């Protein structure tokens, strides 16, 4: 170990991996099964705020009211494009390879929007406020990808 040696940069590839299970809960499960079995969207209405939230959840994010299945209302299936972006790089968290378009879609009757894919359109053709309709998977598995994507109406 007498002679000093030069060492170039050295890199190591590793993974941080979390193996877990997602539980949709009572209200989320009803949302997914309705989507799978009837191709219908359920939102949830907070009586205190007079807002319909999509996707539905057990607690209102604005006033923290406890919500139940009785508060669920049918919304959509069409909606408007609130905002959108073009994804040009690939990240492992994305369910698709880039390039693709993510949009925030506010369904008719809902007061909040949710992110999903926008297809059958170029990025240049998109405008906020555009009317959109969902395209469903043939074989639905009760998850959010039962909606394949949204496209301009």
């Amino acid at each position, binding site marked *: 170990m007498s002679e000093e040696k030069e060492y170039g940069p050295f890199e190591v590839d*590793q993974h941080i*991996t979390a193996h*877990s299970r997602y539980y949709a809960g009572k209200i989320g499960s009803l949302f997914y099964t309705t989507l799978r079995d009837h191709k219908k969207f359920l939102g949830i209405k907070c009586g205190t705020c007079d807002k319909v939230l999509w996707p539905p959840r057990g607690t209102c994010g604005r006033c923290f009211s406890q919500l139940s299945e009785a508060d669920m209302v049918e919304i959509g299936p069409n909606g408007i494009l609130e905002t959108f972006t073009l994804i040009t790089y690939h990240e492992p968290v994305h369910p698709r390879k880039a390039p693709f378009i993510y949009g925030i879609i506010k369904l008719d009757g809902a007061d909040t929007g949710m992110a999903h894919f926008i297809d059958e359109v170029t990025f240049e053709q998109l405008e906020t406020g555009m009317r959109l309709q969902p395209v469903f998977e043939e074989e639905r598995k009760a998850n959010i990808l039962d909606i394949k994507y949204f496209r301009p109406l």
Partner: protein
Amino acid sequence: MTRELFEQELISMPMIVDVPYRFAAGKYMSRFLIGLKDNGKFLGIRCPSCNRVQMPPRIVCAACHVKNTEWVELGQEGTLAGFTIMYLPLTDPTTGKLHKPPFTYGSVRLDGCDSVIDHLVNIEPDVNKIWIGMRMKAVLRSKEQRTGDLSDILYFEPVEGQEKPGRQL
């Protein structure tokens, strides 16, 4: 209420969040990993102040915070300093895959080293066959297959011809 809850179909799905990343090993760790990859040798580093030998090597001594300078070559054998039998899967940081339980995981102190290295131990997960102080040796990947990370150490295994001292559990 409870009845309705059980009648409803509840949805759950496996969710695997995998974040691959690359880190620069730095000056000392690079030298260690290159030594392991090219020569199959463990390099430790000695603290000039307290004489403590650390492996894997770090620039600063963990005990007295002095810059480490003297490289020492360690052997392939050491002593088991602690162990556990894993009944839950462990995520392998090199691949992100789960290691199927049960298996033995242990801390090995190589001869001439003061710190331990935590790694897989190739012993049947049975407390009557493992003990602290057991002599261990490293089993490395073949030179052609080594990639330059800690997975080049496949596991530690006991040196043959040892018997557990004291009573059996």
